[in-house]
Structures are given as structure tokens and as C-alpha cells.
């Protein structure tokens, strides 16, 4: 579609700028359909205990072909650096990959990050050779610190996880992207296709979402919508939009009118 337009993280070329989560789907079947429709290459997963007593549920990994998808484990549910580091290490062990979507939550109602702890965990994990993709808020100062610590990308939230409010502060996201030398991936808050397009029009490198797709009435159809919206937003950004004006400019010629 766009020649040689790809995102590169830790030496891996990623052509789809839509990253998707694996949570909240009604069935594995539905999830697979959504992935297919979305065109996503990167999918996030969570690390949890195996339920020893009940083993009925199909394993998630049976459903995700590691040759087709880049697995991005997260540290969701961790409220301090120590826990996040612990989950990251287990994820590496289980997934045989160094990539980690680093989350250190600071508050239960908003699920906003604890940036202090996030910076601390990033420092440690980067030293241990992880490819750290930190979930953060839309603060340009924290974003730059994460980058300076060696984060492979920064993932500012557009709005609270699962809120569907869209990009609450486009100016901050734009500034984060302007300052960044690593990819900027908007993570969380996208509710519908136009939200995803807006994120890309701000110049971001990718968008990560889960609830916006899995929570839709028709997740497969919404997944296709999101895939198209991310492409549309990316193209619009590259194409260079017209400036905004308060008044009109005719699109049809004003000369050549008939005699009255």
C-alpha cells in the first residue's frame, strides 16, 4: 500500500501499525477472526497462573501462530516495579522472547501508570536485555526519560484503558511524537475507527487497542474498521492535509459563468 512504510522496533520490521490485545473475546474463534480482519502483526498477551485444577480451556497459544504474529507479553495487574519485573522475567521464560509491554499501574480507577515505578522498572529491564515498550501517560517529560533509559518505544495512553474516550489531549501526543526518536505507539482509549485515525494523523507510529475491538458488538467487523482506519490515518498524515480555515473557498471555478 505504502512503499517501504514500516515501523522498526529492535531490528524487526512491522508493516501493520495496528497492535491488538487478546483479552475479552467471546471465543478463541472470534479472536482469530478479529486478528484476520485487523491485519495486525503484534498481539499482546498477559501472564497468569495456570489453573491446575481446571485445564479445560484451550490454550491461547494454540490459537496464535508464532510465525505470523509477534507476541508482546504485558505486565498488566502489577502495581509496583518489583512485580512488573517479576512478570517480565516469567514472560521471557514462557515466551522465549525479550519483548515486554511494561505496565506499572498507579491507580485502580483510572489504571493510569505509576511513572516513577515505570522508570525504575524500565531501567532494570533494559539492563537485563529486554525490549521494553512502556505503557505511560501523555506526559512528554516522562516519555523522553523512558527513551533516555533505553525503551524501544513509548506508548502513551489516549484515554483510560477501555474507556473509549479517544485521544483526550491531542496536543500532548503530538508533542511526544515531535520529541521522540523511538516509535510512539498510542496505547489505550480508542473507542472507534476515527479515534485510531486521529492518533495516526498526529504522526504516531502505531496504535495498540484491545477493548475497542473485543468489546464492540461485532468485534470482527470492528477489527477490520480499525485496520483500515490506522492505514487511512497514516496515509493522511503522509499526504499532508489542507490547513483549517474559518471561511469557505470555492471548489468550482468562479469564472465562466453565463450572462445574466
Amino acid at each position, binding site marked *: 500500500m505504502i512503499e517501504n512504510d514500516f515501523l522498526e522496533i529492535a531490528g524487526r520490521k512491522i508493516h501493520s501499525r495496528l497492535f491488538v490485545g487478546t483479552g*475479552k473475546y467471546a471465543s478463541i474463534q472470534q479472536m482469530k477472526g478479529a486478528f484476520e480482519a485487523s491485519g495486525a502483526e503484534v498481539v*499482546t498477551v*498477559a501472564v*497468569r497462573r*495456570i489453573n491446575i485444577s481446571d485445564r479445560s480451556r484451550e490454550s491461547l497459544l494454540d490459537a496464535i501462530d508464532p510465525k505470523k504474529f509477534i507476541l508482546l507479553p504485558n505486565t498488566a495487574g502489577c502495581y509496583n516495579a518489583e512485580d512488573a519485573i517479576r512478570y517480565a522475567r516469567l514472560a521471557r*521464560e514462557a515466551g522465549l522472547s525479550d519483548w515486554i509491554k511494561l505496565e506499572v499501574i498507579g491507580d485502580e480507577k483510572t489504571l493510569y501508570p505509576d511513572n516513577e515505578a515505570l522508570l525504575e522498572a524500565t531501567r532494570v529491564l533494559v539492563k537485563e536485555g529486554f525490549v521494553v515498550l512502556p505503557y505511560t501517560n501523555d506526559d512528554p517529560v516522562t516519555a523522553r526519560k523512558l527513551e533516555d533509559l533505553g525503551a524501544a518505544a513509548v506508548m502513551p495512553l489516549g484515554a483510560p484503558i477501555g474507556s473509549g474516550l479517544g485521544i483526550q489531549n491531542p496536543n500532548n501526543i503530538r508533542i511526544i511524537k515531535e520529541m521522540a526518536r523511538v516509535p510512539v505507539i498510542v496505547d489505550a482509549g480508542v473507542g472507534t475507527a476515527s479515534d485510531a485515525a486521529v492518533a495516526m494523523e498526529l504522526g504516531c507510529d502505531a496504535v495498540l487497542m484491545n477493548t475497542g475491538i473485543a468489546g464492540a458488538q461485532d468485534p470482527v467487523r470492528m477489527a477490520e474498521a480499525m485496520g483500515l482506519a490506522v492505514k487511512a490515518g497514516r496515509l493522511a498524515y503522509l499526504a499532508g492535509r489542507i490547513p483549517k480555515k474559518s471561511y469557505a473557498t470555492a471548489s468550482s471555478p468562479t469564472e465562466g459563468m453565463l450572462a445574466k
Partner: protein
Amino acid sequence: MQVTINGETTSVPDSVSIAELVGILDLKKERVAVELNRGIVSRKEWEEVLLKSGDKVEIVHFVGGG
């Protein structure tokens, strides 16, 4: 002997190895990670590491998440 696996007290053969435990529990070895008393046990160590009574074992895998 008794060990705690993922929070549940469980009876296992004396000095069973992690590798054996994973087999007993019928887990896909390449899909799980194991922590013994808060320290990770990497796959290549599973054969050697034997459990003692009272050990705390955590076995995790990937589940759906965002």
C-alpha cells in the same frame, strides 16, 4: 510430600523434578514458565531441580490480555 503449586497445596512424589512435575501436570513445557520459591527456574534446569517438601511453585502461561 506436600508442595504449594499456584497457591494450592498439592501432594507430589518425594524429590520430584520440575520436569517430572510438568509432565505429571500434563503441561505443554514449551508454553509455561516456572518459579520456585520466587526464583525463576529456566527450562534447561528443569531436569536437575528437585522439589523439597513445602516448596512454593508458581507455573504461569499466557492468557488473553491487552
